């Protein structure tokens, strides 16, 4: 029996420099794959979390500038008079205690393409915080705004203001300044989605006076009475307020997901192009290797190796090169993540499954790259080659 692995390994070792460079090239491509696929996974995971937190609610906003377009949630262009918001909240079937008029103001730009603002001011009616918080729980303090100067902070916002105060974390009862006014922290949210992590919740009336908008809100977030049908309530409100956009929160998040589709295509396109480039270069390396190994292949064939053995010899070489590269991709990703990216978006938990994916993809790349060289190798005629010798 022909020891295929051994022969393939010896061939690669014999050409150590080119094998090492090929493995390194594959490893860098693998690292790129882990980073990009992990980034996409981070977006998708966040949307799932947002959906979990907001599911089952209806959002009423002013329609967007361009007809038929939804900018997702929250909309910063949306504004409506407080009276209109109150009328919407009085509609039949609305569960008033867990519904509220809301005022959204971005306190900082988004840090991610199509992400929510890094810090988001959410003005909400005290006692109705559940309208925004939904399934998000507080890790410390209480989920309600107890006074006009109280705030509830998301995890990222708390971290930011703690750093401003020169401490590692914020404690319940601690003060912070916003727009020249003192606030007291009454609640700290558990980590949820990016939208909630950057949230700074304060009483609606405080937010309105802080930003000189006494009679305007951004929209309404409402829950439907358990006894009522969500679609019916939605249609009834739409009929009463035809100029407003009334949509289930889940649909709005779907809109964001569709926008993120661009990144899905962009990142997958990058991965495909880079893996195609790697496959082409691997094919070149293997084609040259096959030309150089014509004598060995002919000898193997003369010793009784079948065409399948020869084909496997080439495929094994390709697989060893790609698998070695993809294995090394993991420590490279880890180093890049720690140094250049500083854990930007892609955590270990998100990256590891992508590494397993790319290991499997490596085998597909190897098979594609090995096709032409293997075809050449199996066509080596031992008599002809040995005659030339």
């Amino acid at each position, binding site marked *: 029996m022909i020891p295929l692995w051994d022969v393939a390994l010896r061939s690669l070792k014999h050409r150590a420099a080119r094998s090492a460079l090929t493995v390194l090239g594959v490893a860098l491509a693998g690292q790129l794959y882990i980073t990009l696929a992990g980034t996409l996974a981070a977006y998708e995971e966040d949307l799932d979390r947002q959906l979990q937190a907001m599911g089952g609610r209806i959002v009423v906003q002013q329609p967007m500038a361009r007809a038929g377009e939804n900018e997702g949630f929250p909309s910063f262009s949306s504004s409506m008079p407080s009276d209109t918001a109150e009328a919407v909240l009085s509609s039949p079937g609305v569960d008033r205690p867990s519904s509220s008029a809301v005022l959204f103001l971005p306190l900082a730009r988004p840090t991610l393409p199509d992400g929510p603002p890094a810090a988001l001011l959410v003005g909400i009616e005290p006692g109705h915080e559940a309208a925004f918080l939904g399934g998000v729980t507080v890790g410390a303090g209480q989920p309600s705004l107890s006074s006009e100067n109280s705030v509830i902070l998301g995890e990222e916002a708390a971290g930011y203001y703690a750093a401003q105060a020169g401490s590692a974390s914020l404690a319940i009862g601690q003060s912070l300044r916003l727009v020249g006014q003192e606030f007291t922290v009454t609640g700290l949210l558990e980590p949820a989605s990016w939208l909630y992590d950057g949230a700074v919740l304060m009483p609606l009336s405080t937010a309105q006076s802080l930003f000189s908008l006494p009679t305007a809100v951004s929209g309404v977030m409402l829950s439907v009475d358990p006894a009522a049908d969500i679609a019916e309530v939605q249609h009834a409100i739409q009929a009463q307020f035809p*100029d407003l956009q009334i949509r289930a929160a889940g649909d709005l998040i779907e809109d964001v997901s569709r926008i993120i589709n661009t990144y899905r295509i962009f990142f997958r396109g990058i991965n495909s192009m880079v893996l195609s480039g790697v496959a082409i270069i691997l094919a070149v390396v293997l084609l040259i290797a096959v030309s150089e190994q014509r004598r060995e292949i002919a000898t193997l064939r003369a010793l009784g190796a079948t065409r399948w053995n020869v084909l496997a010899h080439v495929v094994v070489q390709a697989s060893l090169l790609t698998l070695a590269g993809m294995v090394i991709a993991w420590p490279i990703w880890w180093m890049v993540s720690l140094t250049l990216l500083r854990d930007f978006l892609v955590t270990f938990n998100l990256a590891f499954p992508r590494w397993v994916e790319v290991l499997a993809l490596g085998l597909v790349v190897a098979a594609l790259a090995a096709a032409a060289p293997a075809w050449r190798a199996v066509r080596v005629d031992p008599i002809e080659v040995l005659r030339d010798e």
Partner: protein
Amino acid sequence: MSDSSHSEGKRNLGDPLLPVGLGVHTLMHRWARAALTSLGVAAVIAVYLGVSGGVGEAGPDVRAPFEALSGRIIVQQAVEGYSEAEAYPALSSLLAESDAEAILAMRGADPLTSSSVLFVPLARVASPGEPPAVLAVGIEPGHEVAFLDGLPVGDGQAALSDSMSVILGPRAARYFAGAGACETVMLGAVIELAGAEFEVVGVLEPGTALTDHAVILPLRTAQNLFLRPGVVSAVILHVSDPASAGPVAAAIRERFPGLQVIGGESQGELEEPAPEIESGVVSFFEALKITVLLVAVLMISIVMVISVADQRRQIGILRAMGAGRPLIAGLVLTQAMVLSVAGTLLAWPVYALVMLSLRSVLAEANIEITLADLLPSWARLFVTALLVGGLASLWPAWQAVRVTPLEALRAE
């Protein structure tokens, strides 16, 4: 190189073009390998173009509005902490109109070219650090220059003629054209904003990201439309005498300590926007670009290592004929450069075709592209290609110059 290397070698070995001729000839001799390598490099460089031309350019776009503000002073509301990173325009900034009027009336301000402004985002931010894909800019009619600062209109007029007139930036004009037959909104067209109809009286020439995405409308109309009566987002001040910018800014700071005053520090030089907010995204795309270029370097390097191994005999003969190490290194460098430049030239059509075929998908994320947007800086691209080729040739060239004539001929 085999046959003709001898004839080429007979040429004067001191000819500086000899390595180029030999290198190109060697590549032509192995044309299939060279073509496949260039194709592989093209795939990777196309990715580099995509990353560089896309969100990776966010950094310069963030600074562009600031550069365009030179000579002006911006006054907006300061929100502790995050506001510095948010810089200009601060979309959360709202200040009382009475304060804005007091600022505009301060000594040294040029009332004709200064104005209160109201910013309202009308579409999502497509890239971090950029303004929203469409940004409503309410401004006092007759004071449009405060925001435009000399930016010419390509079509129509630079003045808001009535309460329901708008001036559009070129990207905003494309946005409102939407799925219509025309690529851009024409002069005199009617667009709808928050349920109200407006007539387009001007379309701006391309300027900064901020002006390109702007929908300029009368301040009072914007306040009513977006329910912001009595408030504005910021004040844009021009000073009559540039030398007085510093004192004017200092006077505003003293009178309105709660407001953020940008500019006027040293005769109109503006603070740069704090970059840390988008540093994560910028680092991410920088890391992508570096990785992609390294993959290209390795691809060419692998092929060149093989090529040098193939050419050991010829290199030995050249050395025996008196060729110096620089000539041998030049031979390898030429081959690597040619592969890199060929791959780069092939990359652009691949990149442009892919991006144009994705136009409808990109439009969903408010990213509008035309063929002109895809044109790279050819000089920069050429330098990048040379750099990739140069780096890729280092190890193979080192291997090549270490070939001794005796060793190469003994191996025969």
